[in-house]
């Protein structure tokens, strides 16, 4: 009983921690099983776009929408960087967990004039 009491905490916590490290490593590093979200170019003549600023005074602007995809799907198409990878900007046909978020004029300021 004394032996159990002495090592109980270390054993339980240590075992669970090792399992956690293994599962976390497997999920995030090996499988890349998580969502990534990033801005993608948006055509304001076709859809409602968010307005982004290129400088602090927000004199230069650009239009974007947000995309959310599984990291492993993006990685399969573009490698580790989505820069200059147009395939990252759209959802594949039948791709699960891919979601494009457009600007909602009821909530935020959007660029919508061009197509209305």
């Amino acid at each position: 009983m004394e032996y159990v009491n002495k090592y109980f905490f270390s054993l339980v916590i240590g075992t669970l921690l090792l399992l956690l490290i293994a599962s976390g490593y497997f999920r995030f590093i090996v499988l890349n099983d998580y969502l990534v979200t990033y801005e993608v170019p948006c055509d304001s003549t076709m859809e409602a776009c968010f307005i982004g600023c290129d400088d602090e005074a927000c004199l230069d602007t650009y239009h974007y929408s947000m995309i959310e995809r599984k990291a492993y799907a993006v990685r399969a198409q573009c490698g580790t960087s989505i820069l200059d990878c147009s395939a990252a900007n759209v959802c594949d046909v039948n791709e699960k967990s891919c979601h494009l978020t457009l600007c909602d004029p009821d909530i935020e300021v959007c660029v919508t004039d061009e197509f209305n």
Partner: protein
Amino acid sequence: MICHWFPEPTFLFYTPDLPGLLFYAHIPAMIIACFVGFYVFFNARYLLLNRLLFAIAMCFALWVFINLLAWTNIHSDVILFSWTFFGVLQALISVLSIYFIYVFTTQQDISLHIKSILSLLLLPVLLLASTNFNVGGFNLDSCDAFDYEGVLFLTYYSFLGLIAMIWIAVLLYNHWRQQTTKTRNQTLILGVGIELFLFSFFGMVYLGSMAAIADFYDSSQIEFYGLFGMTFFMVVIAVLIVRYKTFNVGAQAAEVLVIGLLILIASQYTYANSTPTTVFLTTLTLILSAIAGIFLLRSVYKEIEQRSEVQLLSDNLQRANKRLRSLDKMKSEFVSIASHQLRSPLTSIRGYASMLSEGAFGKLPQKAQEAINRIADSSTTMTSSIEDYLNVSRIEAGNMKYELSEFKLAEEALHIVDDKRSEAIKKGLLLLFKSKLVSSGVVQADLGKTRQILHNLINNALKYTPKGTITVLLREDIDTRIIYVDITDTGIGIKADELEQVFGKFQRAKNANAVNVTGTGLGLFVAHKMAKQMGGDITVTSGGDGLGSTFVLSLPMQT
């Protein structure tokens, strides 16, 4: 995936765009936590308390490390893998802090029951840390996972910090109440240190995360300030080490303070916008502090050396004292055995001397009669001395028996005075008896021992008074219910500096030998001990050399 808008850090962590406060808050806190943790651990790793403090410090240092990694790294998979452990490490810090305080207050390991409760509190965090309840996604544009952080999960492990604070406060308060004033400060200092650490760390980190989740990114930097709580806690630990030796770490803990101070000064370099002037001033301060630290450490080492020597002397003295006590006990046993062996033949000598003196074997010639009388006197003196030795042995061994009864002290004193009057007359002394008692004068004491004391005191007065008067006076104090017997003589007196010693073992006044050479120096020692054991006392006053003395026996009245 990498955050393509952000540059890859140099030197693992360094990114010039990030605020200097990030590095200033993280790097010193991490180094100090590691330093104190390792220092305490390697100085007394056998102590559970030290191992727990080490675990807390390591969890904190790891948290700071992955937090710095999350702020500076641009690889989403690495950041998310690190992100998994924020909650786990914070929950572990909460639980380990409770465990630490339990061990601090009880000085022993906690029960399996409490360990189970603590494990149950940790279980949800450990099981859910790598699931979407904790974090499930990453924003490549802002290069963080705040958008995907589980608020419920975050709130749960932050709530564990609150539970730890309350639990620890209750434990320390209960411990504080049971302590003496001297040891309370230690508890108070530790309590303030750990509570402030938990409050600042958990509170600021929670607020920072919530601010980031709510898109107030500027406010999220509030978590940087929370890390200073650990530095404060480590300073508290250093104070406990230096002042109270809490972790059984040697006094060389001054090294911790000096190195901690140098780390804090050196951490000024982490300000990204340091100008040449500030770099110069920081370097100068660092060098001057290092020199002052070296002098401080040298003086501390010297003090430690002196303290060790004093400790060694004290240990040796204690050992010698123990040995002396043992020898004293052996001596008393020897005296007791020897005295018993001597008493039997002496009884025969006295008996036969008495029979010879009284003519039981025929009339003796004049010279033989004188010789027999001397034998009888000497054997009486020797019997008395042996009786003193035996009494001392009994007192020191705790074997002296007292049978308390009620009797009239005046009557006993009068009998002894009457017995001694002929001896006084022979010496040409006046032996007077006076009584100022109003009450019946009944005391509660051992009759035999009281007689022995009175006999001893009056005998002493007769021995050490060459001429004049000896007065035995009885008086009482009705309020305190004590009866006094004052034996006042006009004898050789006692010098003021010898008064305190007369009741010591084998102690005699220096002028005593001039009058009487046969005393053992044990009579007053025995009488004093006996009076004390019966709830009374014997005190002495004297005008000085040649001015007589007064011995006062006090005994409690009947109840």
